[in-house]
């Protein structure tokens, strides 16, 4: 296998967007029948490279060789003709079309649909048997779970006879069980001789499934190594350019008094759907309670109620005093006054005003505090001063308070939010997706700050879809599924497998039928039915 021509060979690819050099003289060889991982931080140039390969961008310099032949790829049609298929992070499916209609979209033969549909149906059946890629061909996309939608994307590529499959961050939206299934599919494809390029920022996935891994940093390819000959620590170092602490360094929690007590919390959304169905939990001083779960199972709503963004019923007591759950007394201002700080899940839509400067964002939510006023006006000088200090203490780069929030990288934006919320010294800190879209170097820093606040005896509620993050930060873990807490676990006595099953709504003893039950539950949920397995 090693002496055949590479399935893909890129030679000296360069691409600049304005002043930004997204790809700098990149060369890579991907051998046929292997899974080749490409790993790197946000903005390292992974997606740009793949977009060049798929014909979305034209490289400024360099050559693309496919199966030993020099190939020019001007658009996605060329890429498909060369046997390349791409599964994007954000699926490109027509929601109200059926699976089979989506599969033939753009690959119809002739003027009539019927022959293509029956041809596609046959070929879908064949692919499903070969690769464990079963999807109901007549189901509408909008009724499918995210995992199934992803399979349709893979089927689309295979139907177009792709030999080379590129997957961009494929597991971001999947449960651990669904991710496992995806990897089984990828393994089957590899056995059939397909070549797969897997783009990810998750080290664990690289280690689990790839044969070779290339690391990108700041537009350059810093290394290509055999996966078997490397370690996560080594890869992280290659990605960031310095040694990185992957495990969170923390002493056992010393929990004190109960700070927050939530009883029978229920939230109904605008459309009248009950999103949180009777949730109860306590958080004590000096501990981190992590809420794990697939996005959309009610965790965000719990955070938003506590942060004063949503109304609810039930009861919440904070430091022994009941908190209102609706009306003006339950808004963000009142919550801040009662000692709750909130790092929201979506910093770009909630935590920051992207068009505001960093210093204006430094007091966002606290802008009414007397210390930021001077007479009838705001004391901008004091705020600017505070911002400069916060940016220095939290190592925000570049440390310029006059830059707009949108000009900072994701990690630095998050540090601006964290600095604002943590330095309030709150009794309870709500943290949602603290490291989403944040580079590895900043993740380490952010985790340390959260643990430091815990060690000062503060209560912390962490919501994250990254199971690794939940496992390494939390002192206790609550798993939410379908608006309910499926169970409380401690990180020392549980594992990702058990949590993964809880995330899919299965709380019984793990058995051999796990996978089937997970599928049934998730599908039922997508159809708006009640999950049957529990």
């Amino acid at each position, binding site marked *: 296998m090693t002496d055949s021509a590479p399935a893909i060979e890129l030679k000296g690819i360069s691409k600049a967007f304005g002043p930004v050099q997204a790809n700098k003289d990149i060369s890579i060889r991907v051998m046929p029948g292997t899974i080749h991982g490409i790993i790197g931080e946000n903005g390292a140039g992974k997606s740009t490279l793949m977009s060049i390969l798929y014909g979305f961008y034209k490289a400024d310099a360099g050559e693309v060789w496919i199966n030993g032949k020099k190939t020019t790829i001007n658009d996605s049609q060329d890429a498909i003709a060369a046997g390349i298929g791409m599964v994007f992070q954000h699926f490109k499916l027509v929601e109200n079309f059926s699976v089979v209609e989506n599969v033939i979209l753009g690959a119809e033969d002739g003027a009539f649909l019927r022959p293509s549909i029956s041809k596609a149906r046959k070929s879908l059946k064949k692919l499903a048997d070969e690769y464990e890629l079963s999807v109901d061909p007549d189901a509408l996309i909008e009724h499918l779970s995210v995992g199934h939608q992803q399979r349709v994307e893979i089927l689309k590529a295979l139907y177009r006879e792709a030999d080379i499959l590129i997957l961009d961050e494929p597991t971001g939206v999947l449960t651990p069980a669904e991710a496992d299934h995806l990897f089984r599919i990828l393994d089957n494809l590899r056995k059939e001789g397909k070549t797969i390029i897997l783009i990810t920022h998750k080290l664990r996935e690289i280690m689990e499934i790839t044969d070779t891994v290339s690391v990108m940093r700041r537009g350059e390819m810093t290394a290509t190594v055999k996966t078997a000959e490397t370690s996560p620590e080594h890869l992280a170092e290659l990605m960031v350019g310095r040694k990185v602490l992957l495990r969170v360094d923390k002493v056992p929690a010393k929990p004190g008094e109960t700070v927050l007590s939530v009883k029978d919390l229920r939230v109904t959304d605008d459309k009248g759907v009950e999103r949180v169905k009777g949730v109860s939990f306590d958080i004590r001083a000096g501990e981190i309670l992590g809420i794990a779960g697939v996005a959309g199972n009610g965790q965000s709503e719990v955070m938003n109620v506590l942060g004063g963004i949503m109304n609810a019923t039930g009861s919440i007591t904070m430091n022994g005093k009941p908190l209102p759950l609706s009306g003006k007394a339950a808004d963000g201002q009142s919550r801040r006054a009662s000692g709750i700080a909130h790092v929201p899940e979506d910093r770009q839509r909630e935590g920051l005003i992207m068009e505001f400067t960093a210093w204006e964002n430094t007091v966002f939510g606290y802008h009414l505090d007397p210390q930021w006023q001077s007479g009838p*006006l705001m004391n901008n000088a004091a705020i600017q001063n505070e911002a400069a200090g916060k940016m220095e203490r939290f190592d925000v780069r570049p440390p310029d308070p006059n830059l707009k929030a949108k000009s900072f990288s994701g990690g630095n934006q998050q540090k601006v939010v964290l600095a604002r919320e943590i330095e309030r010294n709150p009794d309870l800190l709500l943290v949602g997706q603290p490291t989403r879209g944040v580079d590895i170097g900043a993740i380490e820093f952010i985790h340390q700050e959260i643990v430091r606040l815990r060690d000062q005896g503060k209560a912390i509620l962490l919501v994250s879809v990254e199971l690794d993050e939940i496992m390494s930060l939390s002192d206790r873990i609550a798993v939410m599924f379908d608006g309910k807490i499926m169970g409380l676990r401690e990180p020392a006595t549980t594992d990702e497998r058990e949590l993964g099953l809880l995330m899919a709504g299965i709380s019984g003893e793990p058995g051999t039928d796990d996978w089937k039950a997970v599928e049934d539950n998730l599908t039922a949920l997508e159809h708006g039915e009640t999950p049957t397995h529990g």
Partner: protein
Amino acid sequence: MDRMPAWADVVLIPLISLVLAAILSALAILAIGESPAEAFYLMVDGALMRSSGWGYTLYYATNFIFTGLAVSVAFHAKLFNIGGEGQAALGSLGVALVCLYIPWPHWSLALLGSAVGAAAFGALWALIPAYLQAKRGSHIVITTIMFNFIAAALLNYLLVNVLRPVGAMEPASASFAAATHLPTFQSMFSSEGSTLFRGSPANISFFIALIACVFVWLLIWRSKLGYEIRSQGFSESGAKYAGISPSRIIIIAMLISGALSGMMGVNATQGAAERLILNSAEGAGFIGIAVALMGRNHPFGVLLASLLFGFLYQGGAELAMWTSIPRELIIVIQALVILFTGALDNMVRWPLESLFAGLRRRKEG
């Protein structure tokens, strides 16, 4: 990273747009057989070369400053207030009621009273669309347009049936008492031997408009309310997170906007007409939209744009008086300026942005 320097955005783009509008206007004037050069000379001569011309230019500019600021304030909360015309009409009504029914001892007190009346009536007229937007989600663009028509009909009714003096043929109120008449520029700046601003309507309201510019600047960029208005304008979900009530901001921003529009009545109705006439807003409510667009919703920009449109109004009137260029063509010229500076902003912006990007790349490369 910003794509081009701020000065290019603020100065260069409006300037290029203006030149383009001027070129097209010149072609239009040429097409009907008149000389563009002579027309331009007449406009400049009539609007800027004599103090009486300036008196008209500044009078119009005062109207546009109020309505332009009104649109800007609402726009910072991401509300498109098209209702300036109706709010100005109601503001004029407020001015008239205050001037007609309260026996003022001195113009300065009358000015205070009418300013409050104008602001209150204008704000009230904006309150209903604001409430409908905040609580019922009725789109503010639609409701404020509708309220322009309602305001016109209401004023028509009141002038014909209520405010018209017995026996008068014209749908207008009685003239205001002399004690309410505001000092004109002519009375303020003329000295013995030299009369300045002769016969022109510019009056002390111009300085109130300048104060309003400073007020809006402080409000939007220096006050906590302005901070909240801008937060809401950029991101409603962000505002909710920060505990800022979107409906409260919508209502307050529209109240301020309506009050500013209404203030135009002080200039037009008390300062110039000295009685309430039909259509006292003279379309300034709509010009305010163009002024705000061209002024980038900044008070200083609004001031400059208002002066430009004041010039166009006065210069246009001169053209109509001294040449055979029809009145309609003057409206065409004004429309071209609005089209280029407002609606076709991106036509100039995009080439300019890529030009600057190219320059920067060459410098770095």
